[in-house]
């Protein structure tokens, strides 16, 4: 296995809400141009982990490095501006804005030429959105909403993108479409950190996998190895 550059490094992250600690001492490396998928039962801290990296929650301890630079002191919007994209699980679009305005917000800090360029790129990737640009985003279907949420994140041309359960609530065909899009992202040199419930399908498109349980990382390995391990299959992948 070739040695990749580490795009995102999380070191000893502990975080929670108020008095409640959800995740303890989690370290994870995300290598450049790879997909790493985090799986685990509900409530094990996967979403909390992503939130603490993006700064939505302030970790109690731990550091974040992006391409070797310690970014632990940056706040959420600063992280977005240096190339960390994030698509949260629920509430990941602005319902009172139109589809186009959602994308405009995605490119809020961009200069007009860059905005237009990125908009074209995103619409090429998701041509379905082209017709829907003037529509209210609250009228989109589940799959279209995910598309919009992902497009919004891509507007900033991120180097790293974190996706929290992008296939939640979608029909199997759309799930495959979404995972296909994510694979395409990797090919465009993005590093993808994925949290998924559709564990098997997600791991099958991933390079690496991590299993969280009760707020700790219990396994980290090549995705293929995790898929073929019978023990893990039984415990976490539903047999």
């Amino acid at each position, binding site marked *: 296995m070739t040695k990749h550059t580490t795009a995102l490094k999380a070191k000893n992250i502990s975080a929670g809400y108020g008095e409640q600690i959800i995740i303890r001492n989690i370290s994870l490396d995300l290598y450049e141009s790879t997909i790493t998928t985090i799986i685990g039962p509900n409530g094990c801290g996967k979403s909390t982990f992503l939130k603490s990296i993006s700064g939505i929650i302030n970790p109690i301890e731990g550091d974040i490095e992006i391409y070797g630079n310690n970014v632990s002191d940056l706040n959420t*919007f600063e992280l977005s501006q240096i190339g960390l994209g994030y698509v949260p699980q629920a509430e990941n679009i602005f319902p009172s804005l139109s589809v186009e305005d959602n994308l405009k917000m995605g490119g809020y800090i961009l200069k007009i030429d860059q905005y237009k360029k990125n908009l074209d790129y995103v619409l090429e990737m998701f041509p379905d959105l082209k017709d829907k640009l003037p529509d209210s985003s609250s009228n989109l279907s589940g799959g279209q909403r995910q598309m919009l949420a992902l497009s919004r994140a891509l507007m*900033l041309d991120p180097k790293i993108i974190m996706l929290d359960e992008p296939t939640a609530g979608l029909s199997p065909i759309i799930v495959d479409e979404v995972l296909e899009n994510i694979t395409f992202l990797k090919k465009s040199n993005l590093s993808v950190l994925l949290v998924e419930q559709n564990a098997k399908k997600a791991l099958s498109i991933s390079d690496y996998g991590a299993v969280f349980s009760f707020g700790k990382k219990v396994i980290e390995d090549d995705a293929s190895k995790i898929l073929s391990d019978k023990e893990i299959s039984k415990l976490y992948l539903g047999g």
Partner: protein
Amino acid sequence: MKYIDLIFENKTIVVLFWIILILSLLKPWLFVNGVLIGSLYALGSIGLSLIYGNLKFANMAHGDFMTLSAYVALALLLFFFPNSEQSASVGPFTFKYELLIVIPFTVVLIGLLAVLFDKLIFKKLRDLGAAPAAIALTSLGLAIGLRGMIQFIWGTDSTSFPRESKLFWDLPFKIKIPPDMFFCSIVAFVIAVVFYFVLFKTKLGKAIRATSDNPDLARITGINTEKIILYIWFIGGMLAATSGILISVQQAIITPVMGWKILIPLFAAVIVGGIGNPIGALMGGLLIGITGELATGWINPSYKPAVYFLVLLIVLLLRPNGILGRKERQF
């Protein structure tokens, strides 16, 4: 139109509409007065609605921002143009040209002051995760403090801008319009339209609405939400200042309690129109103005504040989400 359907879903509202219509036809000059006064209320409530809808708390100090603006405008006027008593007034209006010069400076100043208050007070409360009621309580403290300062500096007596009395315009149906009121109402409408444009058609406006929808997501999107909030205060402060000055021109009086006294009708207008909805605030202001003026045709005019209170109660009973909102309750 979608809005008209929404409004008429509820039978009681239809009844109220007809009552207002009939009363207006009986004494149309009251209706006209109501529209004119209502447009001034609307300007005040648009600013209040902006803050209430986007920063999610009832800013009790809004009225005192308005009062302060009038006093500051007067102070600037008297300081830079001490002879304005003798100078000419503008056209058919009572106020002097110098006031028009002073107004933009005052408005910007008050806008900046609102930003300062956010940095000193409200941002800290946000960071502490304070509940909306706690923030509203703090704004009440600010309101009290502001009024105290105003009274300390300028005294408790009333005053007014240098003015020249002018004739009213006589129109048919016993309608008499003071030209000032007309001017102020036009300005209020224009500003409301401009504000609507800013909120819905500009990038900043969309970012404000995005921040209001979901501040976390706005940050993830790369928007500096704290800066957006400062803009909200700046614009809200400017709107309060404009309406404060216009109202004191139109009423020909400046008192330390003028802003506080109209807090109830302003909030009523905001809630009637749906919190955060600028068009709603405009319509709410008009409705409040019309209802208040019409009422004086049949009951003791001193009861106007009670009428505003009654409107507030009725709206809370029937349509707490505002007339332009849906019928569901909110929790």
